[in-house]
């Protein structure tokens, strides 16, 4: 077990190295002097040579690339990604203040998707092959093909423009600060509904599909046949014998969905003007705020790495075959 975790950790360190090298190489393969990132439209000729030299000095631009990389990684490890070009504030602070909003949205969407998706997956595994199940399988398959931004626009049309049921965008109403506490909570909840639906529907399809195939896999095994043969009721076979084993592969899914969630956040936050990390990312890309883009790219990749690491370790705890298999 320990050797498995240690090995997994070593690989994670290696992957972290790969992430930073990839980001660094990407930024440095952009045509033009990196210095033009920092001065933007002003143009090189209008700036005194002494100032240019001091900028080169500050950002180590005169050093060889590997040295520049080491400087950058050393800062990145302490979450220091430099200052934003837009407002000269540290990238770290800008990201940290948006993080709670993105987390709230994703956490709720994830929970909703799991609460609906997993039971649907179990139902379709149990009813496999019947008409209702096959029809719903096609339905879920089509859900994958729906562009989330289109779904969002349709929901806005339906619930906000046609019928004034829910707010069109934003996280709170304009008069939020004049409201009483219960009214504030209600206001926030109303603003959550459409973004959460948009984020959750595609996830729900993934959860349903994944839990269905996990359960189908378990049902084929000998111990289920044995349970049936000894006369256990079908419900008991499913809940007692099959379901708990099918939960194990779901752990990997939690690790796999994190990058997916972060990508989804960019679109959903942009559409609903949700003041989170995704909106910050797209704004930074559009204003060519490279320090923020670079910082956020590394941060999100590391978050993904940590999620898959945690998932793998939990998996090893849950499934003795993984950790014992390592020794053989």
């Amino acid at each position: 077990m320990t050797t498995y975790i240690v090995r997994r950790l070593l690989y994670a360190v290696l992957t972290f190295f790969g992430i930073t090298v990839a980001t660094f190489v990407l930024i440095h393969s952009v045509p033009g002097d990196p210095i033009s990132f920092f001065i933007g439209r002003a143009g090189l000729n209008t700036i005194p040579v002494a100032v240019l030299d001091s900028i080169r000095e500050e950002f180590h631009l005169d050093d060889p690339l590997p040295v520049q990389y080491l400087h950058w990684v050393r800062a990145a490890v302490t979450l220091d990604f430099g200052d934003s070009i837009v407002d000269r504030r540290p990238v770290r602070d800008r990201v940290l203040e948006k993080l709670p909003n993105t987390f709230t949205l994703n956490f709720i969407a994830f929970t909703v998707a799991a609460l609906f998706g997993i039971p649907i997956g179990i139902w379709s595994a149990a009813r496999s092959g019947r008409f209702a199940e096959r029809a719903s399988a096609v339905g879920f398959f089509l859900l994958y093909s729906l562009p989330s931004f289109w779904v969002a626009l349709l929901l806005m049309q339906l619930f906000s423009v046609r019928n004034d049921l829910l707010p069109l965008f934003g996280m709170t109403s304009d008069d939020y600060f004049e409201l009483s506490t219960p009214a504030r909570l209600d206001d926030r909840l109303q603003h959550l509904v459409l973004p959460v639906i948009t984020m959750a529907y595609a996830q729900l399809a993934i959860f349903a599909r994944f839990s269905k195939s996990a359960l189908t896999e378990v049902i084929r095994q000998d111990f289920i046949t044995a349970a049936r043969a000894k006369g256990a009721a079908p419900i008991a076979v499913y809940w007692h014998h099959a379901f708990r084993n099918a939960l194990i592969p779901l752990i990997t899914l939690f690790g796999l969905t994190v990058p997916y969630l972060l990508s989804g956040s960019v679109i959903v936050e942009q559409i609903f003007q949700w003041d989170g990390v995704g909106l910050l990312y797209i704004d930074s890309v559009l204003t060519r705020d490279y320090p923020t883009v670079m910082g956020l790219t590394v941060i999100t990749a590391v978050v993904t790495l940590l999620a898959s690491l945690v998932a793998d370790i939990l998996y090893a705890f849950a499934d003795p075959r993984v950790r014992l298999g390592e020794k053989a």
Partner: protein
Amino acid sequence: MTPADSLWRLSWIRFRRSRLATFALLYVAFTAVVALFAPLIANRKPLLSRTAGGWSSPALRDFWIPDPDYDPPAVAATYALRAPVAFSPNTIDLGSRLLPPGNGHYLGTDDLGRDVLSRMIHGARISLTVGFFATIIAVLVGSFLGAMAGYYGGAADWIVSRVIEVVLCFPFLLLLLGIVALFRPSMLTIMIALGLTSWTNEARYVRGEFLRIREVEFAQAARASGARDGRIIFRHLLPNALAPMLVSASFGVASAILTESALSFLGLGVPLPTASWGSILSTAHEHIEYAWWLVLFPGLAIFSTVAAFNIVGERVREALDPHSD
């Protein structure tokens, strides 16, 4: 029926057994035809016109020379055969802004008075071109790396696996947005960026297939007869990995189309004024309060095309799998 093509022929028979998949394949073909002949289907220039100078086809020229600043000939045509949709995708007409469907525009107009149907027909070109070429790049990169990893194993396999791990750590859309923004959005950048970020599935399929078949008798026989590695890989092993590649390519086109439209929607797709399905939806977002037609139709186009490719891919997977139905 030779033994070599029997798998493909059998799979085709099985493929057609699904009516939904056959319909989806026809729909894909229909979209491809629309995309290919877009300048002849939606164009304000006549397909055929007769002036004092004789017969000419102004629309036909748009196949290779895009000509947005077209002026009708000074000499009135005595005969003109109009295109089915008599509007060019980029013609701005501020007098007819945001018209609902009808009024001479089958699917309405956008905020600059451009015909939505015409923009959608020309947008099909962007979506399919980006989808296909991005997938070709992904398949080439993925199968090359997968083949190296699967055939040589050891260090090659280890390195390729680590690279895949790193690529998978980057949230796909964020990485893509970053690359496209760094290198300025254009059709070429988008195709290359999409291809270079989505080859991991192909690599894993090909690697798995190679690991499975590299020690099978025919591969050993090729090696014993003195064939070089390159010949064994490309002539003997890679053709056997074609089936899983075809499946993942079909899903790949679907996801590339979806991603391209997302990029265009976010304003980082093919630069304006070139029409794409995602950029029409982005206009729809700005005018969500009244222009429902800008939301409905381009979204339907994206959804139906992506769904068709996904259905075809799923059916190909089933048809090639000897264990299914």
